[in-house]
């Protein structure tokens, strides 16, 4: 039937354009500026481009996995997210304009995670806990977290933390319990050693917000850690 095949061609065409558009949403902002040149380069990346990708993007695989793992909290999903991110990065490598290659790939990982999270939500059809827009980092009054974070500072002395040396597993657990925006900022700063500028690029939030978010993330981490210590002391 010629009519049906024409129709399926059209829907296929539509679908591929949707894929192109969603691909654009994944890539770091600013990559589009050189897209005219980038398209020509990515259409058929020469062998040296693939080699260059191996040299400068592949070494960040551990960082990519670390971020995906902490963001998703799921071992299997993290690996899928990393593979997806690397494929997309490879296809868009012509649009990489230099600068921090680590920040570039981590931006893509972060966006792939957001896609995965949205997909999860669509499937489960359940009102998500973290789905509310995150806007409260500069006005702590209106979030419940703030109350915990703003405990008297004196109770969390440097000594408490130095004496009670944290096990790495415990640190992972405490990190996993933080709200996503704070967890993300801490992972990028403390584990991936990104500069404020790079964190701002990866998360597309202003540097001022990065600074205040980091300060609050540390306060919340310290409080959560202290609560763990207190809970540990109690007989079970």
């Amino acid at each position, binding site marked *: 039937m010629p009519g049906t095949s024409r129709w399926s*061609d059209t829907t*296929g*065409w539509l679908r591929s354009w949707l894929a192109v558009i969603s691909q654009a949403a994944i890539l770091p902002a600013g990559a589009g*500026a050189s*897209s*005219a040149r980038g*398209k*020509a380069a990515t*259409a*058929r*990346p020469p062998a040296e481009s693939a080699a260059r*990708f*191996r040299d400068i993007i*592949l070494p960040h*695989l*551990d960082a*990519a*996995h*670390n971020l995906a*793992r902490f963001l998703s909290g799921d071992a299997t999903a*993290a*690996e899928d997210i*990393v*593979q997806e991110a*690397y*494929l997309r990065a*490879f*296809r868009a490598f012509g649009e990489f304009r230099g600068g921090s290659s680590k920040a570039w790939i981590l931006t893509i990982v972060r966006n792939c995670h957001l896609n995965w999270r949205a997909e999860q939500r669509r499937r489960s059809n359940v009102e998500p806990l973290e789905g509310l827009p995150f*806007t409260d980092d*500069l*006005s702590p009054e209106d979030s419940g977290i703030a109350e915990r974070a703003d405990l008297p*500072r004196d109770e969390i*002395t*440097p000594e408490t*933390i*130095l004496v009670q040396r*944290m096990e*790495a*597993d415990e*640190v*992972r657990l405490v*990190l996993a319990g933080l709200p996503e925006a704070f967890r993300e900022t*801490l992972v990028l*700063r*403390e*584990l*991936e050693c990104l500069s*404020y500028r790079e964190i701002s690029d990866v998360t597309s939030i*202003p*540097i*001022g*917000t990065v*600074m*205040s978010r*980091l*300060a609050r993330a*540390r306060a919340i*981490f*310290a409080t959560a*850690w202290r609560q763990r210590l207190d809970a540990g002391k109690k007989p079970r």
Partner: protein
Amino acid sequence: MTGSCAEWDLLLHGYADGELDAANALRLEQHLRECAGCSAELRRIQALKQAIAQDQVPWPASPALRERVTAALAREASLRTSSPATAKSPLLSRLFDYARRWSLVPSMAVLAAGVFLMLARPETGMSLQDELVASHVRSMLANHLTDVETSDQHTVKPWFNGKIDFSPPVVDLANRGFPLVGGRVDYIGGRVVAALIYRRNGHVINVFIWPSMTASNATTEREGYNLINWTQAELSFWLVSDLNAVELKEFREDFAEAAPK
């Protein structure tokens, strides 16, 4: 750390992260010598950083994942060097070739439009003005008018240090009937800007400030808000308020008079 040291809090984190410029670092070191509270806070931040950044905390990629990604990339690379249209129907491949061949044209058009809009700012900077109004409205909706709330200009001005890369003039206009409410860091036109907040009887005036080399001057109205723009001492100023145009103009003159020329 006592309450009066709140302004040092972010600087302490910036210092521990090695992100402060020399001037701020020096200022902070001086303060640390005098303030036991802030010194203890700095040690706490450093201990926390050390604890989190332990070797075993990050999740490295497993060898299996490394293999999987390398294989996927190799597959992708070979797919691209061979004919890309083999698996597609003739119509689809023709559409794709067509799109690829002509994608340069719309890209260049968008680029040209972008350059034009950037050059034509602020006289025809529609999006910039919309952004300013949106930021003004947002600042009131979220009850997030100020990051630093005080009527004291000497508290607001140092607060901006280390948050933005320029020094906005903070002037006291209380005796002219425009009390200072506080300051905020905002994000306009792709850059971090300073926002000062003044009040006039129940009306809020947002003053957005950022460095600008090109002189501009404009008075407009958008969605019921009045906007006034001018440049002074290589800074661009934008007033946004629901205050009437006459009083806002009065504010502009008072502010320009009191700020450094």
